């Protein structure tokens, strides 16, 4: 009997230790509604503006946000209206369960008088959702005259893990313009220097040949040279085949363009199409098919560039005249369309370019970088990095600005905003740095990156916040 008792005891013990607790420690934090940006401004041409409000998480239930506003020289019905319609300085906007943002529209009925300012200030009053809080951008300043943004958030539309787009961001107007990476090949400088840049975002490379007659070059002449004229060959001297990564025009791979008869023919590696394969989580698939090779020769005719180009084995060549268009810093040409294409915004209308980039690792030569950020050197934009160990982003003020730290290099941000990763570790956001950016108009911003990846771990989803100092 006793034996069986012990046996029973044993079995009970077995069952007891077989259980396991399943404790949950859900973190409850309040539901927050805020203006996406603290400021907005109308250009003279714009007739309406959509104002976006964002949530800290998807809305747990239906509800309403109550917003109040006050105007300066702005009267509802005369100078502006809103959609939904508002009454006596209050505006109610509905929240739908499960949504993560909402918006309302301000319609401008007339432009302010010259020299007069017209503005509205919106304030979040309350939200009907249980356990909610108002914090962050609870106030929005809307100017009916063009004014630089006081700050905001921008998610550059790089386009995901294939990073198909080069995105040009303008901080003061809070706008972005994008161009597909492989939509252009050569950029012809429109300033006084006669320089031509390669499209480093698709890993192009070029080498001068000892020839001045483009038709005399055949594939056999360059076959030995071809393996070296590429990015990422781990040859310290291959930087000669790509543009200087600092962005200086003196460092272009193609020598200064002249009218000389002795202008050399160049072998041109057209790099890679934008990748199409699905990248693994947290990783990128930058390159697709190789785009092949060309031979080119560029000369000047007055202030126009003359571009001769042909396939390697062709005995005849095409020729196109490219004039300097003073509106933009570069005039872009594509071998795909054999035409001039639009890529960059107008001069001075962009500050930062999110792009894939041909950089160099000293001692190892050129090296391809995803998630790169270039500041507009031609437009006088400069940047430098600050470590949060020295000063926090929140505490940084204009008094902390040190102009001497700005360098004459387009890589003021570069890849410094992320950790590089390696075998077994993927790149990740650097959370202990932020950047100071000074644009061509002298506006100084502090800028902090908030994401490298989407919530779903997809690369090519950068976003950042910035504040005007």
């Amino acid at each position, binding site marked *: 009997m006793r*034996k069986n008792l*012990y046996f029973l005891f*044993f*079995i009970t*013990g*077995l069952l*007891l*230790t*077989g259980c*396991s*607790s399943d404790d*949950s*420690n*859900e*973190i409850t934090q309040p539901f*927050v*509604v*805020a*203006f*996406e*940006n603290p400021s907005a401004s109308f250009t003279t041409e714009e007739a309406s503006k959509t104002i976006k409000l*964002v*949530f*800290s*998480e998807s809305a747990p239930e239906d509800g309403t946000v109550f917003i109040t506003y006050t105007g300066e020289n702005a009267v509802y019905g005369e100078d502006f209206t809103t959609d939904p319609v508002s009454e006596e300085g209050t505006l109610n906007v509905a929240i739908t369960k499960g949504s993560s943002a909402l918006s309302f529209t301000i319609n401008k009925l007339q432009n302010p008088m010259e020299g007069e300012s017209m503005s509205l200030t919106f304030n979040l009053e309350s939200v009907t959702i249980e356990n909610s809080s108002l*914090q*962050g*951008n609870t106030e929005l300043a809307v100017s009916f005259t063009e004014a630089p943004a006081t700050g905001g*958030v921008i998610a550059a539309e790089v386009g995901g893990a294939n990073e198909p787009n080069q995105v040009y961001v303008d901080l003061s107007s809070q706008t972005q313009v994008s161009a597909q990476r492989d939509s252009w090949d050569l950029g012809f400088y429109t300033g006084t220097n006669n320089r031509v840049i390669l499209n480093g975002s698709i*890993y192009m490379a070029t080498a001068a040949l000892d020839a001045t007659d483009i038709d005399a070059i055949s594939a056999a002449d360059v076959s030995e040279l071809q*393996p*070296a004229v*590429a*990015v*990422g*060959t*781990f*040859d310290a001297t291959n930087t000669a085949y790509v543009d200087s990564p600092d962005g200086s025009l003196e460092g272009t791979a193609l020598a200064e363009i002249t009218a000389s008869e002795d202008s050399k023919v160049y072998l041109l590696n057209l790099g*890679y199409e934008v990748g199409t394969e699905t990248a*693994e*989580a947290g990783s990128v698939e*930058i390159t697709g098919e190789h785009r092949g090779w060309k031979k080119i020769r560029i000369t000047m005719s007055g202030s126009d560039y003359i571009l001769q180009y042909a396939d390697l084995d062709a005995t005849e060549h095409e020729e196109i005249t490219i004039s300097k268009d003073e509106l933009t810093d570069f005039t872009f040409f594509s071998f795909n369309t054999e035409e001039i294409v639009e890529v960059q915004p107008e001069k001075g209308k962009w500050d930062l370019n999110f792009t894939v980039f041909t950089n160099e690792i000293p*001692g190892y030569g050129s*090296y*391809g970088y995803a998630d790169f950020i270039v500041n507009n050197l031609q437009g006088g934009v400069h940047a430098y990095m600050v470590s949060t160990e020295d000063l926090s982003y929140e505490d940084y003020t204009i008094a902390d600005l040190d102009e001497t730290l700005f360098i004459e290099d387009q890589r003021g941000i570069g890849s410094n905003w992320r950790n*590089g990763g*390696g*075998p077994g570790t*993927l790149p*990740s*956001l650097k*959370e202990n740095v932020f950047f100071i950016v000074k644009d061509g108009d002298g506006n100084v911003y502090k800028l*902090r990156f*908030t*994401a490298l*990846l989407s*919530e*779903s*771990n997809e690369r090519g989803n950068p976003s950042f*916040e910035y504040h005007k100092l």
Partner: protein
Amino acid sequence: MKQPTSLLLLLISILSISAQEKSIDTTKINTLKEVVVTGQINPQSVERSVFEVKVISRKDIDLQAGNNLADLLNQQLNINIIPNATTGKSGVQLFGLDARYFKVLIDNIPVINDEGLGNQTDLTQINLDDIERIEIVEGSMGVQYGADAVSGIVNIITKKSAEDNWEIRPYVQEETINDEYGFFDQGRHIQSVSIAHNINKELYANGVFTRNQFTGYSGDKLGENHNLNDGKRGYIWLPKDQFHAKALLNYSSEKINSFYKFEYFDETVSRYDSVVRMNYNPSTQTNNPTVSDEIFHSTRFVHHLNLNGPLAGLLNYDISISYQQQKRDVETYNYRINSEEKFDVASFEYESRKGFYSKGNFTNFIKDPKYGLQLGYEISEINGYASTLSGDYQGDYISRMLGSYDVFTSFEYSPGKRFSIRPGGRALFSSNFNPQLALSLSSKYSFANDLELRTVIGTAPRLPGYDELYTYFVDINHDVRGNENLQPEQGVSLFMHLKKPLKFTEGSLRLQNKLSAWYIDVRDRIELIIVNETPLAYQYRNIDTYRTWGLSYNNSVYYKNLRFNAGISYTGVSKVLNSDENYDDDYLYALQLNSSINYSIPAWKMVWSAYFKYNGPQYQFVQKQDNDNNTIIVRGKQDSYSWLDTSIKKSLLDNKLELTLGARNLLDITRVNTTATNGGAHTEAPSNVLLGYGRSYFLKLLYNLNI
């Protein structure tokens, strides 16, 4: 919640129950001779074996209370267990060669895992509950065990008989993980039941069910719900939950012996990412942290049918037919920590091996005891699968069938009692590689004064793995490729063992000394090499040579109730790295010591034991950049460390209850500093290696119900 005290409480309560008991009984003395089967033409005693077979007995397994094969092998000389914190697996390293060169067998046939058949075994997945003993043979055993048996093999022999009609053994084992323990949520919790039954004189059946739950070792990490990106999310040792179910039906008669064995194994390993994406929303000034986690789920099925016996007086046969599979699935998902919400959930097969295996041994052709002839075959057709997540492969996945069709023979000649010699050979035919040949020559000589000398020469090829064959990692900055034209590596080993048993018939003192020397040479070793300078490209090639030699000396003393063992091993390794521009093939030496002590007090029905192993500093040549940026070769060092385990086992209640209390890794080893690893292109060389999770205490309670 860290409470090693609750384990203590449990112990005290159990001791107080047992204190009321008084009955005393003498333990049965096991007088059976140690019999080994590994590599033998017929099962025979250790002394008669031409091979040198090391045996870990059931008694040792029980005293160590190791919960898997990794715990047990860690105490063996020349063996190191290398845990992988990223995958949760633990592989063996024998003579410095990793798990790809070492085969794990159960009842003489290789056991499958998700990366191979026999080799690449994760030792933590091998449960010890139905095991009779473990046999270890060092050296290349290609003739007996085929490809990949280069550094050695371990053969696990399961129980196939019971003394009583019914033997029912439930047990529980509770372990702390370092100082982490909680009844439900922290520590290691094992529950097991084994049932053995003699159905009749000829039929025996048993079943074992074991659950082994390891809740992970956190150390300075803060678990899965930690929501800051400070590197502290997750675990240092991954949580692992295992379930084993095994069944065996054995039929023994004069004419035929047969058994059918079934095994089911199931494991869940959770990998919680330490990188937290904070997803800071500047507008609302809130975070909504997300992470990407992976839950691995492995299952293994093994069917093994064995038939053996004499055939019409002409010969003896021993045939095994087996179908085995192990599959590792993965569930990947993204997780919002604050709301505990999974999204982007995807489940798919990560890696698997499955297939048919058969081995046949035919012996006793010649009736003259001077001669022994063995003929055999070993065939397998294993389908393998590897997803792109498990490695960098071109396309979506790798799927291939590897067929191996081997025949082997060996011949033993024993002109007298003193001397025997046994040459052997195996031809290995494969669906994927050129035919290979493995050879062996073993001999044994007994001198007049009981001194035994064994010389064992053997060869074995090592087949290339998926990473070496199919890797494809090519982008703008990298070009690393596998090589489908790789050929197997060639291992050759020479072992000499000198053994001297000393028996003092007057007293109860017994001594045994063993001196071993060996040399192992692996040629055509596969390494990643630069095949093109501009652009830089890497590919796997058969290029390098690995050599190791060493000496070991082992002493066992048996005196009354004391058993003491001490061993020392001194090993040198030389690597010829033709794959590198710079290398140094000087021999680098390492020292290992091990010692164990068992002392039993029959009156108290107690056995105390301690196991100690010292692993001396290990050296390896590593490349460094000097001040002038030149690559230089320096001797890197991994610091020494020691394992110390101890336990007390006490029998209570008429030997019905067995209580084992012990401590593993008493010296609290977790990480060991090293400068002996090369860094990668993007990474600094790690400054330490993870070897253990620190000191842990365990309590095992086993109940013997014999009817």
